[in-house]
């Protein structure tokens, strides 16, 4: 008798029983990892940490992980998020410790929480960014920032996958403030709050805008770090997307 088409043997994969949301940081040299680099590292770390992942069915089972709004390659971040589904319950604190241990240094777990209702991606409405300049003084940066804020519309062009695209930067800028950096090698810091629009306005688009309106052209690109992302509060600040209603009170800027 001719063999039939093979299907995976055995029962269907175990269903997911727990959904966790995880905040992680991308620090130091690992800011140069891309989204795909992180995904590869995470899947291996989950195996090393023996996290009981839920898998999709079929000959190519994939761990059930969803990623949301990752920072671009080259930017550091203290506030990146993903969600995982487990086939057995795990204590979030223990998983936090094990997963952090299994990830390479520079990809660090910050918070592990049980997932609340709603889609994670919908909670990520805006980000706070910090840009540290090594060769720009505070006064120059402050003047440039003022010109940025004084403009109603600043169009920049960025090369996207489907070719160059021109869009307005100014609308996304909710807040911009120049000040001193923490210390050498950096001399000045720009704090930015950017609303997540389509297309996404990134800190490097703001840098293009600053070059345009104020001729700010640092010889060394600034170190860009996302410090926070989450829902936009009514007062215009960014909230913690993993905080429950009761935690919310404790969050300060």
């Amino acid at each position, binding site marked *: 008798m001719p063999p039939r088409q*093979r299907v995976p043997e055995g029962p269907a994969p175990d269903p997911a029983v727990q959904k966790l949301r995880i905040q992680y940081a991308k620090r130091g040299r690992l800011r140069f*990892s891309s989204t795909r680099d992180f995904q*590869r590292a995470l899947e*291996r770390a989950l*195996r090393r940490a023996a996290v009981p992942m839920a898998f999709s069915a079929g000959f190519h089972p994939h761990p059930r992980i969803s990623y949301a709004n990752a920072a671009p390659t*080259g930017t550091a971040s203290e506030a990146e998020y993903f969600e995982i589904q487990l086939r057995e319950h795990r204590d979030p604190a223990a998983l936090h410790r094990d997963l952090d241990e299994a990830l390479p240094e520079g990809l660090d777990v910050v918070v592990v929480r049980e997932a609340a209702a709603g889609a994670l991606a919908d909670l990520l409405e805006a980000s706070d960014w910090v840009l540290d300049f090594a060769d720009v003084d505070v006064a120059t940066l402050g003047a440039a920032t003022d010109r940025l804020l004084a403009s109603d519309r600043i169009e920049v062009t960025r090369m996207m996958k489907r070719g160059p695209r021109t869009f307005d930067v100014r609308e996304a800028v909710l807040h911009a403030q120049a000040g001193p950096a923490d210390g050498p090698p950096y001399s000045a810091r720009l704090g930015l709050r950017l609303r997540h629009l389509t297309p996404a306005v990134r800190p490097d688009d703001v840098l293009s805008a600053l070059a345009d309106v104020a001729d700010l052209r640092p010889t*060394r690109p600034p170190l860009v770090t996302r410090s926070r992302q989450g829902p936009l509060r009514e007062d215009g600040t960014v909230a913690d997307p993993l905080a429950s209603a009761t935690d919310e009170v404790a969050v300060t800027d």
Partner: protein
Amino acid sequence: MPGASIFYDLEPLLEQVSKPIQYVGGELNSTVKDWQCGGYDADGRELTVRWALMYPDAYEVGVPNQGVMILYEVLNERADALAERTYSVWPDMEAAMRAAELSQFTVDAHRPVGDFDVFGLSFSTELGYTNMLTALDLAGIPLHAADRGEDDPIVLAGGHAAFNPEPVADFIDAAVVGDGEEAVLAITDHIAAWKRQGRPGGRRELLLRLARTGGVYVPAFYDVDYLPDGRIQRVAPAADTVGVPWRVSKHTVMDLDAWPYPKQPLVPLAESVHERMSVEIFRGCTRGCRFCQAGMITRPVRERSITGIGEMVKKGLEATGFEEVGLLSLSSADHSEIADIAKGLADRYEGTQTGLSLPSTRVDAFNIDLANELTRGGRRSGLTFAPEGGSERIRKVINKMVSEDDLIKTVAAAYGAGWRQVKLYFMCGLPTETDEDVLQIADLAKRVIDVGREVSSRRDIRCTVSIGGFVPKPHTPFQWCAQLDPEQTDARLAKLREAIRSDKRYGAAIGIRYHDGEPGLVEGLLSRGDRRVGRVIEAVWRDGGRFDGWSEHFSYERWMRCAEAAFDDTGVDVAWYTTRERTEHEVLPWDHLDSGLDKDWLWADWQDALDETEVDDCRWTPCFDCGVCPQMNTDIQVGPTGKKLLPLTVV
């Protein structure tokens, strides 16, 4: 300050270049040690021995390399030594580094390569030679060994290509042939002792000490004389050297279980060419395929025990989190306990989403059983077999003993077990080959599809024919033969393609993949070249030649143009090195590097090839006196041990 990180200066470059992750290091299980980890002696002399290890290709190709990973780990385990890794930078990064005047750096601690004591390069292929020159130049190390100063690193070549280091003799200070793990430790001992003594005699004395061990080849200590017709007359230790041996021996690690490396395999963040962990299940091969340099130069066979393999797989998976384990060797199904290994591992990892693979298997039904065992619950996509030669006649010439009926039986078993794609690997340009030998590949592929359709009752099965051009290599019975020129190679492949495509009954069921013959000719020049080829390599590099293993970077025109100019007054040319058949008593450029193989035996085997006489595997049949075992005072090390893999206990 030597050993200081240049990362701050690299950062702006990393913002501009493609795939910056390949330059930042920080891989899981990577190591950064204190530059002075070896400490100082009473007189304040620093005693650390520092190695920069390079795989001279892109990071994505180099980072999974087992050889570099092993040496990196054994060196870093020593308290008085440190090892860091460096890879070839892509042209965009090279341009940015030149503009910013930054040195070739290690990815681990971003230290300039020129600050290390040894710059060790692992050459799996000769096509990395131009990349070595880029790295030397970026590192600020003089290209020519003769121009180097006291503070420059010792430039040391290893890997399979180092079995003929003559084409790069001008650029390297030394070469080591054979297994590296004990050799690098012995060299480290010599450097440590020399440093402790206050570096007596400087760089030359250190190289002399290494050369006198008999296991390190220092090209500068050997003179080469040529005959009027261009052939080599003699290679001999230079008059001003004392105690330098006439021949340099290869290194052989006998007990693989004593060297369970890599223990902590590197896990890159970047995508690499091998997204899996590898465990070497044995080293060496005695199948005796006459084209196979790896099989000849890695003799004798040394098996890792079944329990040693089980332990390495377990620890490696725990250390890495890889989803797949490859059981590496030159002919994996030949391990004396392979069935128990396959079953034991399949049992252990059933239901854990861990894939097991067995590359390099031979063509017989036993392999189908093994492959089935390793994919018990999983997908069965493709199986690869390497008959290497299209006709039975040519398979006798190359000593690849598989009959057409064996092959058909094997693929029938594969399709019957649910495998849907069979890939067949062949070579074109083998000695004595005619169009007819290659055209039989088409008939074979058609029979494979016929049989596959019959046993599977399906139309969507496929057979892919993959063909590489044969390049004769040193230390093989084919080291004397004439390489087929690119025009004839391409013409033969075009006929084969036509023979496959013209038969509409098969349509898309048979795929054919091949490379044109031009890169093979350059590889041939570099493989069997002598010291005069060095000037061609340098000319090509100065003309912009980089990444010769990559078709988008390789330029045949450039190689031929530079070779013509460089060989201008020598009386030799590319054809002389490649398509010329050598005679029995010609001095070959690599004769003074001892792979253990007896040259008379190689010649006799070459004559057997021409007579289409086959030779058995000495693991199962009596010795054929290839020379390795008595020469190296070694022996084949095979099981069975009779042990089994026990289930893993759940912690």
